[in-house]
């Protein structure tokens, strides 16, 4: 358990937690301690979703997650999305529908959509899936192409 060698896994690789201060958030651990800067820093207060990653397969806001609290969990970031069958489908759908412009919100959206599809899958309607994405902001696309990408990814779930 914790105490001796606390650790978690990021994109399948073990990461020791012993050196991580108690108040460090996952966003900073990923970007600055591990050099994984694909996860983006936006509002840092849970309002924009740019920092979304998966924790044990479910969408989480890494700016509001204390890294030490994630001991024993499996974190997937955008860098690991293409190793996940659902993640790959989502990335392809975003590409085909050109569901991006500046690209800053894209990693957060890809991870959030991946998390939502893994949970709801084909059982949920596109409208229900979109309701679960209200926490992700985009200032460029107006969400229209993103909604199309979600629909496309849902149709193609493995």
């Amino acid at each position, binding site marked *: 358990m914790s105490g001796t060698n606390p650790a978690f896994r990021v994109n399948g690789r073990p990461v020791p937690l012993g050196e991580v*201060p*108690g108040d460090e*958030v996952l966003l900073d651990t990923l970007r600055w301690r591990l050099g994984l800067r694909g996860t983006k820093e936006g509002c840092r207060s*849970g309002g924009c979703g740019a920092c979304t990653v998966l924790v044990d397969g479910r969408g989480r806001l890494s700016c*509001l997650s204390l890294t030490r*609290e994630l001991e024993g969990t499996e974190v997937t970031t955008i860098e690991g999305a293409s190793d996940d069958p659902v993640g790959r489908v989502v990335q392809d759908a975003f590409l085909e529908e050109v569901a991006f412009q500046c690209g800053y919100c894209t990693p957060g959206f890809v991870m959030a959509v991946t998390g939502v599809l893994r949970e709801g899958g084909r059982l949920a309607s596109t409208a229900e899936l979109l309701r679960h994405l*209200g*926490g*992700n902001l985009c200032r460029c696309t107006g969400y229209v192409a993103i909604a199309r990408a979600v629909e496309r990814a849902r149709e193609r779930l493995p």
Partner: protein
Amino acid sequence: MAPVEMVTPATEAEALAELRRGPPEEVAIVAGGTDLILDLEERRLSPRRLLSLRRLPWHDHRWDDGRLTIGSAEPLASLEADPEVGRQYPALAQAIAAVGGPALRRQATVGGNLGRSAPASDLTPVLLVLDAEAELLGPAGARALPVDRFLRASRETTLEAHELIRSVRLPEPRPSSAYLWQRVRPANDISQVGVAAAYGAADRRWRLSLGGAPPRPVLVPEAAAELHGPRPKPAEVEAAALALSSHPALVSDRRASDEHRRRIASVLCLRALEAAVDRPAEVP
């Protein structure tokens, strides 16, 4: 400056001992962490240690003949996933759905929400009309306190220095209940006005509460007193809405003027009662 430590006690006794280990301002509790991180970032808190509740058995809810007890560290998403919550306490399900977004609800907890005591909390107005009790654990043992007595003002509760919130208990199912809120936008936004309504089958009385304005959400007994029986008459409902919207808590602030708040409170009261009455008074 030494880095902030994190401690993860495995038992309630260990947790209480941790709390007593130094002055209260040196330790901060990690429930979901969402409010805590903002407090740390904005330097409202500068603890030396964070006390994680991760290993304590406070992450589930249990049903006891329809009565619900919620572990203080249970993520809202876990309550959301239980369809029984929506059947027995529709107002609670509605309030949970109003909190942040789905990712946030995977971390946010009822205990954390109570402890933060935010004027615009969506959960508090509902806990009030459900006659919820907070179960507190301290060195002298456990005690229960109605939420209405537990909360004082923004960031102020009657939690003592060495106490933790262990659970929240709802004494009776109230399927005839509803929670409505008005914001400029549906989600990810702080409520301007929230209204909760619930009918208690046991004592055959209504409860109405108002949220969104400082210092904290409140029960409005003078409004509830206008309602009689499980299906109040239109004139009673209008009287209740009028009484609710006259409450002095509906003040102007940067989010809304008092005039607008009163208008919204009245409309939400009518609609909440309509929704609540539409639901069965008792679970069949």
